[in-house]
């Protein structure tokens, strides 16, 4: 199985360890991971402010670079949602895109839905708070949102729950937005920071030691506030936690 690895631009530049962790997890479960080195950005920042004509060439580049793989996987619910749900507005019914749309996955949903990983061996003996990135949750449906009535499920939680020693901490508001929202974080800076601080407080009050998410962009915003406010809450992308546990199981006798 050849997996085209999609590393969002800001992960490439600022969080290389999240990309490396993604490679480790995918390889651990038997995928052949290939990183197309010419990739830059999915175009979401441009599309989100409304510059569709500027985003279109980036969408086209993405399709050109990733069409050849069996699957495309990336450690970001938001960027994957851009490809799966919003490229249609830019590229229409282009057959190569429609094919790509079907085989593009966020990391946790790929592990659960495609690789059908039942559990991950390894210990992570910490109290962990999950921040649900909104696009993963409500656009990719990697979990059930608190608004919708029906069976409750969550793919990120399912993987984390299988780790030994982990305690997932309950939140007062389980899936409220952190306020990152791309350019929203700057254009609506006051509301954005208030939203972020409210999320952090909810996690701190629930006793979390580690804050994790499938979206590093939410965590970039939250970590920025945590560091400025001098709070003690460690921030890790879910891939880093899973990679840590995969590495442990390798070294186990």
């Amino acid at each position: 199985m050849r997996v085209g690895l999609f590393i969002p631009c800001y992960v490439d530049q600022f969080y290389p360890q999240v990309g490396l962790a993604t490679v480790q997890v995918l390889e651990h479960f038997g995928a052949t991971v290939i990183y197309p080195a010419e990739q830059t950005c999915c175009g979401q920042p441009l599309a989100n402010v409304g510059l569709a004509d500027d985003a279109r060439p980036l969408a086209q580049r993405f399709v050109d670079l990733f069409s050849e793989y069996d699957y495309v996987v990336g450690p970001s619910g938001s960027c994957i949602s851009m490809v799966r749900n919003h490229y249609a507005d830019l590229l229409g019914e282009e057959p190569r895109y429609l094919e790509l749309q079907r085989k593009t996955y966020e990391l946790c949903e790929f592990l659960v839905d495609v690789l059908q990983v039942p559990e991950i061996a390894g210990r992570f003996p910490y109290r962990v708070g999950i921040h649900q990135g909104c696009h993963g949750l409500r656009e990719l449906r990697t979990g059930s949102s608190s608004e919708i009535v029906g069976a409750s499920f969550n793919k990120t939680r399912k993987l984390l729950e299988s780790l030994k020693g982990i305690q997932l901490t309950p939140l007062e508001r389980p899936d409220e937005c952190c306020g990152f929202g791309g350019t929203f974080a700057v254009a609506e800076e006051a509301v954005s920071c208030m939203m972020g601080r409210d999320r952090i407080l909810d996690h701190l009050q629930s006793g979390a030691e580690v804050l994790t998410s499938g979206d590093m962009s939410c965590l970039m915003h939250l970590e920025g506030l945590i560091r400025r406010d001098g709070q003690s809450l460690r921030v890790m992308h879910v891939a880093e936690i899973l990679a840590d546990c995969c590495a442990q199981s390798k070294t186990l006798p």
Partner: protein
Amino acid sequence: MTTHLDHPTAAKEFVANDERAHWHDQALWFVRKKRDRVAHALPEWEALREQASRIKLHTMSRLAQYLEEFERQATQLGAVVHWATNAAEHNQIVLRLLTERGVRHVAKSKSMLTEECGLNHFLERHGIEVVDTDLGEWIVQQRREHPSHIVLPAIHIKKEEVGQLFHERLGTTAGATDPQYLTEAARQHLRQEFLRAGAGITGVNFAIAETGGIVVCTNEGNADLGVSLPKLHIACLGIEKLIPRAADLGVFLRLLARSATGQPITTYSSHFHGPRAGGELHIVLVDNGRSELLASDDFRRSLNCIRCGACMNTCPVYRRSGGHSYGVTVPGPIGSIINPFADPAAHSSLPGACSLCGSCTDVCPVKIDLHHQLYVWRRRLAEKGLLSWSKRISMKLAGAVLRNPTLYRIAGWFGRNSLRFLPRWLVYNPLNIWGRQRELPVPPAQTFRELYQIDMENKNSLGDNSHG
């Protein structure tokens, strides 16, 4: 109602009072939680939403036909139906009905449409006194404000402030904040207003094409009292309030109160089928831009709206910026769709007052794809040249860099190394809006791409065959 402030500026002012902004957020989150409890108690909730959405989409696809059917049936019941193209026509029709009958005092129950049309000010200018009889609306009317929420018009006002207002206007004890005591004082006062009124004006929640009947939902019974004493009842509604059959009503009544306030049903769902004996019922059907919305492939679905306010209660931005920060009659996610439609330039900041979290889309009882429509709005605003220059310049530049992998690498290298080696005071300069309250990421020496290549070379030199 318009204001000169754009949303980020008005929101910043609201957020600056941290204690009050959190109080507002928590008051509305409480309503959202109540909604969750009653919605999750109905296993058929999602089926109801789907049904409601389909009924509305069907109605909108044949709106002209249903409006004419409604007019025929309502007329047969003895009501008089008026058609208004816009707010000015609506206001003129209402004024004429009142002046022809010599009415000087009007008891009005809650109607967002009359707010939209600016009816109160218009009638007051013509010497007619209008009293809002919904308690929340009466409070904002006394404060010479506009509602900040379509269902909870005075949600932005604390009970201490209500106590002070009542002390000044109604002579209640200074410092009294007991809701029961204050409500009773308002009740006694409003009783006199009801007795004095020469006409009752109401909004309409649902107009039934099949029967010609209209349904008004209130929690205070003020609509019933307001139209039962005087001889003249004027009911004003936007043309999107139509539903085809009486049988459809149950779907919406079950969704409306649960979504709006977390109640299983509104306290009073009053049905009016023609005028009461000896009275007159005039129904004013108002377009005011709705036909253009109906013609829009992008935003037609926003006409599904039943004005429950659930999108406001759930919106993390609305809860923290307050309804007045939107500067419009209908604020929040739905307001950020319909207001730019009326005047894109005046309301160009509203589609950006959204983190695209999608909670509104999931909570909406009639399944309007709210956050997607806000996303589409941003594109339409950019096409109209209404994107702010800072967003346009920065994103145009980003686009040029991101289209070229070499430029991307060079720009990334400069960016990371500036963060690594420039002094803090220079990085956190006044133009760095991100850095006002937040740290920037700690820049690594190498990118993922570089580290991945090193990794691959090591693996190859070790003869690692894990990629085979």
